[in-house]
């Protein structure tokens, strides 16, 4: 049961991620990204992190992606190329992908594979429920949490300022 669910979700996540880059029509790319995010939420759920899964669906699939769909459906799309290619783009892409591959392989080979034969960590009761996450965010990691909220606030204010300036000149 768990294995079946895991592979369904994993295939969904990978298929969605490939779809995002491979599909020509931006609207379908966005839909693939949504499928990817929902699959990720299922994977979080299987890692006994119900809260993270719910947050993933509510914030990313429910709010952020809605804006994506909104913009893509309005602006339409397909047809025109997204931007000019960089010089040597193909070579650079392969180089960056190769570096990422090596890095991930190193990480997987050095640590994650060691746990394959074992039972996995024992999960304490209450792990990953909202209370535990809240305690982590507001006690142990209070400073990074507040700092990131400040960064988000600055970004929001910046977006409003930029949007307002454009209207004045137009």
């Amino acid at each position, binding site marked *: 049961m768990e294995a079946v*669910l895991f592979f369904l979700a994993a295939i969904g996540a990978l298929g969605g991620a490939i779809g995002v880059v491979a599909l020509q029509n931006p609207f379908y790319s966005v839909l693939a990204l949504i499928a990817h995010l929902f699959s990720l939420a299922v994977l979080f*759920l299987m890692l006994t992190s*119900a809260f993270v899964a719910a947050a993933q*669906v509510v914030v990313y699939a*429910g*709010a952020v992606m*809605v804006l994506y*769909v909104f913009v893509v*459906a309005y602006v339409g799309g397909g047809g025109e190329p997204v931007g000019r290619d960089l010089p040597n783009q193909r070579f650079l892409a392969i180089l960056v992908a190769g570096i990422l591959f090596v890095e991930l392989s190193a990480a997987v080979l050095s640590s994650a594979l060691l746990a394959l034969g074992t039972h996995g960590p024992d999960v304490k009761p209450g792990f990953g429920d909202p209370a535990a996450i809240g305690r982590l965010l507001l006690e142990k990691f209070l400073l990074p949490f507040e700092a990131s909220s400040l960064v988000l606030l600055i970004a929001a204010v910046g977006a409003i300022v930029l949007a307002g300036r454009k209207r004045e000149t137009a």
Partner: protein
Amino acid sequence: MLSIADTTFVEATWIMIAKSLVIFAIIFGILPILTVVERKLIGRFQHRYGPNRVGPYGLMQPLADVGKLISKESFRPENAVSTLFILGPLLPVLSGVLALAILPWGNVQDGVGLYGIDVPIGILYFFAVGSIAFYGLLLGGWSSGSKYSLLGAMRSAAQLISYEVSMGLALLGVIMMSGSLSLVDIVEAQNKIWFFIPQFVGFLIFMLAGFAETNRTPFDMPEADAELVQGFMTEYGGMRFGSFLLVEYMEILVVSGIAAAMFLGGWMGPGPGFLDPVWMLAKMFALVFIFIWVRATLPRLRYDQLMSLGWKVLLPLATLNVLVTAVLVVVT
């Protein structure tokens, strides 16, 4: 076992299956009655009889309606995207049925919890599955290949995002007062006083946002018939249109159920324990009546009025409510 299931209280699988079937059957029995109740009530509000030809008091009307919808051709416009067009009405139904799972009908009685599931993330589950419904509208509107449908879908997108924020913040006060996200715990916390009284502002905001989330008058902008024909469902016919309609009533029931559990004491009421689900249902129906009453009374807002109400009135008010509640909870 998946962690979304209750970890403290485990039931046999067959009980869980039986529970889901019972909840599903009862709600789907109520939905058609709801359509005829709405038409009857609106008729009364407007000083006319409403449907009274099919069956006694017109009670068989939904049967005739559904029969008509099912026997119609499932029409599809030529430039519609077929898979997405079919997916459109499916997603909202899925989301509505999933949301039914957390409505609490009573606490554990004789070893059976009178609810679908009691998840630790509780009310977040409602928002998570609610976001699926939205894609149904959007895909339906976009894939129809029609301007009216697209505009209707875009409007619903903007509207749903705007009001979901206020809706969540309105519930935060209740969550802080009860100290739990689980709907069962929240109802239990209303043993002394229903949260409807201390959280009156939250209740008002939640209901207003609920009208907007279910696309009901005065916020039925996505399907404003005077401007957009029927919004995102313009191009739908037959039972696909029927599903969109069905989902609207299901969402009304779900929002009423959440409001009843969060603010009106859920299953709490006098009488023996087996009356608990009846109390819950009665409270839900009272709220559904308000939905219909509002539809018969208020005209549709203009789109900019809708947006400024959502962002400039409800959101600051909800935030203020959360702040005041937080201070009071800490002080007392």
